[in-house]
């Protein structure tokens, strides 16, 4: 009786089903947890993602399994939470929170930042070309390329629609590179700009009226969605969140969107995206290629922004510091902070943060527009 009980427990346990692939993925999860906690690499997202990877690779849990046909047993917890990713709900809700936290004032004050936001999408299309050369389908190449937009929710949104099987690798690559911005961007910034250009001090931005800030999200919504209806969930939610903030009449909604809501959705999104990284889908040579292509996309996006920054510096007669161009990749506000740090290294009295915020928020719009175009072409 006792031995039978032991045998039953043993045969039902996950230990018997554990393979070396599961072990390796558990190891990967532990490394990601280490990076999130000790190295503080985007911990808000990397920690739930890493824990999702850990949960999904513990065998026989059924956390990501749907209900079996004809069975009264419900599916796993993460399976139901994952529907928010699959249906594109979470990325859009995160955009609502981002919108409520974003100040478009610097962009309205100097709208030329929009061109830097557009140029910093260059890497998306470089990676797209290389990925198709390597044999990825256009849908997969689009999803890989969007890593260069440096916008996690947009990458997840596009990938769930075009190449859901690549979601774990793309999400992990996108968030990892966003965390590595302070390491990836500065060498490129120093390589592509001269000491003189980095020292350029920019004129103070004009004051933007409240009315302009209120009109901006409404007009962007109408304009962008009429032109590219496929971006409606992302741009619509981004601008709704911003209107909550700028209108000043729905303080509670604005506060909820930028605090409680975004935090709750981040937990669900992170854990379930991580849970898609199961061994048989993740441990493939394709994953390494995606990670390499993602890095390339990210670097070329930075280069695109910097080169346009240099062009604008030249056209303006040296009034624009080209370092703010690299902030056109949409990782807000990390990329703008990197511009500030590099600018101050060249000239300690240089304050580029607010100037870099314009291209930075333009990059959010730019990457959403790029995703919309790819979705319209290959969706």
């Amino acid at each position, binding site marked *: 009786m006792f031995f039978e009980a032991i045998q039953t427990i043993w045969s039902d346990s996950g230990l018997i089903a554990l393979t070396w692939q599961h072990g390796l993925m558990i190891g990967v999860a532990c490394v990601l947890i280490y990076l999130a906690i000790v190295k503080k690499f985007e911990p808000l997202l990397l920690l739930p993602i890493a824990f999702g990877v850990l949960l999904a690779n513990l065998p026989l849990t059924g956390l990501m399994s749907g209900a079996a046909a004809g069975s009264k047993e419900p599916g796993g917890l993460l399976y139901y939470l994952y529907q928010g990713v699959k249906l594109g709900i979470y990325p859009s809700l995160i955009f609502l929170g981002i919108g409520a936290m974003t100040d478009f004032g610097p962009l309205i004050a100097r709208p*030329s930042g929009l061109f830097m936001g557009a140029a910093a999408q260059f890497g998306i299309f470089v990676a797209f070309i290389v990925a198709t050369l390597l044999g990825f389908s256009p849908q997969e190449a689009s999803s890989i390329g969007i890593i260069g937009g440096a916008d996690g929710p947009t990458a997840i949104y596009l990938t769930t629609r075009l190449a859901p099987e690549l979601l774990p690798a793309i999400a992990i690559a996108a968030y990892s590179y966003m965390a590595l911005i302070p390491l990836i961007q500065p060498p490129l910034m120093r390589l592509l700009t001269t000491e003189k250009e980095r020292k350029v001090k920019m004129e103070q931005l004009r004051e933007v009226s409240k009315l*302009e800030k209120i009109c901006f999200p409404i007009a962007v919504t109408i304009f962008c969605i009429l032109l590219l209806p496929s971006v409606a969930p992302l741009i619509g939610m981004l601008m709704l969140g911003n209107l909550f903030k700028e209108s000043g009449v729905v303080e509670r909604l604005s506060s909820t969107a930028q605090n409680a809501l975004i935090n709750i959705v981040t937990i669900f999104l992170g854990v379930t995206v991580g849970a898609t990284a199961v061994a048989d889908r993740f441990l493939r040579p394709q994953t390494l290629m995606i990670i390499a292509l993602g890095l390339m996309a990210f670097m070329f996006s930075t280069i695109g922004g910097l080169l346009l920054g240099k062009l604008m510096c030249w056209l303006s007669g040296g009034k624009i510091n080209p370092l703010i161009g690299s902030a056109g990749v949409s990782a807000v506000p990390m990329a703008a902070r990197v511009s500030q740090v590099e600018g101050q290294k060249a000239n300690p009295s240089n304050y580029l943060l607010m100037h870099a915020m314009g291209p930075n928020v333009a990059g959010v719009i730019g990457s959403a527009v*790029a995703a919309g175009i790819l979705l319209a072409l290959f969706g």
Partner: protein
Amino acid sequence: MSFFESIVVSLFCIATVFVVLACLFVFVKILSKVLSGLAAKSAPLSEDAKTAVETAAIAAPAADAPDFTAGELKLINVDEKTAAMIMAIVSHESQIPLSELQFRSIKAVPKTEIQ
């Protein structure tokens, strides 16, 4: 998809991103012009209003003078701005309207005297 096709698609996509954001640039410029134009139009009105308020403010003391007076106020080592602030704070803290309070003097006490 061939290499050539992928280049064509990429050029088309990046051009579209530029066109969309360039249109937004034009739009933001127009919006700023329109709103600053509207603000400029309403500015003369507000100037008139400001003059009216100033005129009323000049007239007001004469009208109010018979009703109450703050009396003679001696300021010792205190400038007028600081004195006005102190009076406003006392009025606020005591919840007595300023018009019902009478200040005789406001004196700055040197630090050594406090200790």
